[in-house]
Each structure stands twice: as C-alpha cells, then as structure tokens.
C-alpha cells in the first residue's frame, strides 16, 4: 500500500466529523449527557441506529424494543462480512476490532484497497475512521451542552438524515415494494397503537416482507 491509512481515511473524515457532530449535538440537546453521546460512538459505532436511538430514548421505549429496531436497521451489515471473509486478520483482538468497526464507509473503503494491503493496515484504517466519528461526536456534544439554542425545530436535522438515507436506499432498491409497505404500515400502526406506532409499524413491515417474499419465491 503506497499511501498511509491516515491519508486514505480523509474522505471518511469529511463525512464522519460533521455527521458525528450532528449526532453529539442532537443527543445532548435531547437531554442526554455529553459522555453518554461519546460512549455511544465508542461502543455502538453505527450511524443510522445511533440517530434512531435519540427519539427512542426520549420516548422511554423498552431496551428490548430499541435492540430489536437496531437489529433491523443494521441487518444489511450481515452481507458486508461475507465479501471480507478472506481479508480479516488471524490475530484475535485485531480480528475482533475489524469486525466491530465494519460500518458502511469502512466497508466500502476496505473493499477498494489494493490486494497487497496487510491485515494490520486494514485494522489501522478502521481505527482511524472510528476516531473521526468519536471526535465529531465529542465536538457536537460539547457544543450542544454550551449552546442554549433559542431555535425551535433544530431536530429537523434528524428527519433530514433519515430522508437522505431513504433516497440512498431507494437508489439501491430492487423493487418499490419496501416503500409501499412502509407508507401503508405506519398510518395503520398509528391508528391501532399510537404510543408505539414505530415499533408496531416495523413489526408489520417485517411480517409483510416475509409474506411478500413467500408469495414471490415460495418456500
């Protein structure tokens, strides 16, 4: 590998530092402690589900429900590992960390590295990427606890982030069905179980996905 891991991680830093800062800021503004925002980025390290946890914690949802939603949101990560099976270091701790740090961005970076890249260089790159995410979070959390915002509606950033992820998932779609399933299940869930509409809607979407898969592909 001709270039250092630090240089290779610059494109990830450009995305991770500001987005991590938005997470830290919103987490603290929602009433969370700054050190818990940082702990989330150190221990969970998964962008979309960290943003998702903010409204869920504010609503006081049961931990089991939040864990279930995390499972569903991060399910796509199962398929990352499949294409990296042969690239992972043998060493216990290094292997553990590389698997832990397999976010969308790190995955795409790892798959584009030249074949002669050593396993330890891959681990360094993964570590530097998480450093950017944690630094961004710390920055946002400190800002969020200093600034007393008079601005109402700053939490629209969360809606905007999810909408951005919708557009990107839509680009990668194999059909429009997931969109229709979600657009139908949310109002139904809201009608029958307003206090837990999100969870009910996720449950309905999972059932609908299994059923649609069953009628198109059979068992």
């Amino acid at each position: 590998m001709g270039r250092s891991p630090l240089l290779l991680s610059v494109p990830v830093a450009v995305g991770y530092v500001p987005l991590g800062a938005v997470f830290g800021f919103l987490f603290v503004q929602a009433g969370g402690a700054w050190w818990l925002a940082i702990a989330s980025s150190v221990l969970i390290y998964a962008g979309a589900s960290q943003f998702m946890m903010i409204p869920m914690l504010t609503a006081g949802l049961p931990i089991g429900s939040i864990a279930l939603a995390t499972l569903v949101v991060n399910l796509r990560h199962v398929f990352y590992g499949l294409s990296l099976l042969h690239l992972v270091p043998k060493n216990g701790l290094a292997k553990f960390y590389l698997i832990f740090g397999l976010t969308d961005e790190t995955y795409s970076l790892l798959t584009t590295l030249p074949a002669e890249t050593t396993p330890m260089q891959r681990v360094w790159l993964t570590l530097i990427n998480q450093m950017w995410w944690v630094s961004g979070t710390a920055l946002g959390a400190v800002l969020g606890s200093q600034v007393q915002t008079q601005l109402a509606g700053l939490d629209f950033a969360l809606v905007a982030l999810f909408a951005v992820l919708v557009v990107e998932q839509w680009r990668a779609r194999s059909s429009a069905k997931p969109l229709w399933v979600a657009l139908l299940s949310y109002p139904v869930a809201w009608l029958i179980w307003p206090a837990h509409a999100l969870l009910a809607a996720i449950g309905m979407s999972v059932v609908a996905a299994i059923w649609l898969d069953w009628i198109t592909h059979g068992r």
Partner: protein
Amino acid sequence: MGDSTYVILTIVAMGAVTFAIRALPFMTGRWLQRHPQVQRLGRFLPLSIMVLLTLHSLRDIAGSWAGQLWPEVLALTLVIGLQWWRRHALLSIAVGTLLYLWLRNGF
C-alpha cells in the same frame, strides 16, 4: 431522556446487537449463503425502516406545532430533491434544516 443507567444499558444492548450482526457472517457464512430468503429480507427491509423512521421523526417534530404542516412538507421536499440531485448528505441535511429553521422561526 431518562436516567444514566437506562441510557447505558441501551448503549450496551445496541453495541452487542450491532457487533453480533457484523460478526455473524464470520461464524455462519455458509449457512447464510444457503438461505437466500434471509439475504432477500436484508435487501428489502432497510428501505422500509428508513421510510418508517422518516415518518416517525416527522410526526414527532410536527406534533410540537399546532396547525399547518407546510414547513415540514417544504423542507422535506427540499432535502429529498437536493439528495437526489447532488448526492451530498451533509449539504442536503444542512440546507433542509436551515430552511426549516427559517420557516419556523422567521428570522
């Protein structure tokens, strides 16, 4: 947001679930390759979940304003349009949020 113990336990649970998902193929790669229905669900669900999260957080934020919802609709349309056109996540989030703040606070 509840007491620290609740938040810490949630963080630990979410971290464990996320790690388990990322580690699964390294333990059961062959099993997954033999079960295409699991792979198809993995392709289907993320779009549904993101739409649900958008709707839910939109409902949360709109619920704090009585009456008309056109600022939400306008800002959301701008975010989706910008992301579709420029494909720059930070730009879409920043511009959409600024428009929303402007519409709601009118400075």
